[in-house]
């Protein structure tokens, strides 16, 4: 057991110092930009050593479909050198902060020819072993709608409306049960055996004074749910016909 722990610790001590020497460089994966706009390509690194004064950043560009890269930016000894001959002449600006390990550049006035892969390589002496990181630039005339935004919006709105309608339905039912609304309307046909009971109820209603306000017209859905059984239904049609006849 003790020998195992000793061997493991020796192994860790042997592996870990090698890993601390490598530098890790981070850029984005893809950048989408509009035609004619400016885009900021960010590049930062992580190093176990403190940031030295000899830190260097270099950016290279490889157009889509080509195999050659050209260098467009280099920062060394505290001085930034931008492209002055290539396709990015007068369009590259250094907006990074080497003291904060940031080597970002700004590319202005984009064109369709700027579609391609930008690679950032940073070196922090003596920490120079690392893998450069690449970011792909895509230039659009109009920014395309993300896949699924409209889909989600339509589904969300319809389901939301459905939930709203169900909530309103149950709210109305609750309010009617609490007698906030009074009901005496039903439009569906009833069975023959309830005819006599309905006629009795309607005769009772017609003897009273008719209310000044007519009952609010409610959808048949509500009436169907209000009537607990078919035997206690009111018939406004018969009431009105009775009142009209009298």
């Amino acid at each position, binding site marked *: 057991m003790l020998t195992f722990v000793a061997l493991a610790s020796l192994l860790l001590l042997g592996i870990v110092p090698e890993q601390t020497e490598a530098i890790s460089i981070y850029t984005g994966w893809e950048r989408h930009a509009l035609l004619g706009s400016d885009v900021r390509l960010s590049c930062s690194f992580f190093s176990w050593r403190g940031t030295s004064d000899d830190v260097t950043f270099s950016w290279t560009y490889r157009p889509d479909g080509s195999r050659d890269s050209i260098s467009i930016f280099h920062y060394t000894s505290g001085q930034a050198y931008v492209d002055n001959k290539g396709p990015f002449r007068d369009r590259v600006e250094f907006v990074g902060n080497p003291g904060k390990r940031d080597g970002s550049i700004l590319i202005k006035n984009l064109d369709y020819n700027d579609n391609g892969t930008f690679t950032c390589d940073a070196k922090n002496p003596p920490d120079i072993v690392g893998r450069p990181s690449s970011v792909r630039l895509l230039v659009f005339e109009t920014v*395309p709608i993300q896949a699924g935004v409209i*889909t989600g919006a339509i589904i969300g709105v*319809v389901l939301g409306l459905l939930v709203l309608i169900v909530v309103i339905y149950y709210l109305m039912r609750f309010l009617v049960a609490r007698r906030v609304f009074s009901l005496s309307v039903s439009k569906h046909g009833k069975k023959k055996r309830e005819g006599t009971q309905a006629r009795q109820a309607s005769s009772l209603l017609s003897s009273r004074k008719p209310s000044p306000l007519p009952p609010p017209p409610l959808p048949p859905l509500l009436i*169907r749910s209000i009537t607990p059984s078919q035997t206690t239904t009111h018939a406004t049609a018969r009431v009105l016909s009775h009142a009209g006849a009298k």
Partner: protein
Amino acid sequence: MLLILLGVLVMHLIILILLIVSTAASTWSVGGDGTTDLWYTCRNSNGGYHCKPAISEDWLQAVQALMILSLLFCFFSLIAFLFQLFKLVKGGRFFFTAIFQILASVFVMCAAIIYTVMSPDDGSVKFGYAYVLAWVSFPLTLISGLIYIVLRKKE
């Protein structure tokens, strides 16, 4: 009566399966070497079968949304049918079931129409089986919804 209920239930289940297959299978259009829409464009190029996400245009997303909604509403209608089967009063109508089923048929119709009108007009591209299933399930859901309107609970 039991036979009618069973028949209606079986029809509903068949419609649900048709909608699921039509929504999930990515073969609304078949071209010379591949299939496309609703979700993926798969091509049988040299070396293998490569799939990438279908074009994310507005109309295609609307078709996706409408197909999913019709599937959801058909499912809700099935749940409502089973619920109302046991809770409805005698002589009552399957109102919620009918409403949801008819809404599902309207959504499938809209999705199929939008896809028909907006799909790119290429000579070699024909419509696939998922598209046919969408059109088939439209009248089936409509008929099923109408049956539920007419159906009354007896016993």
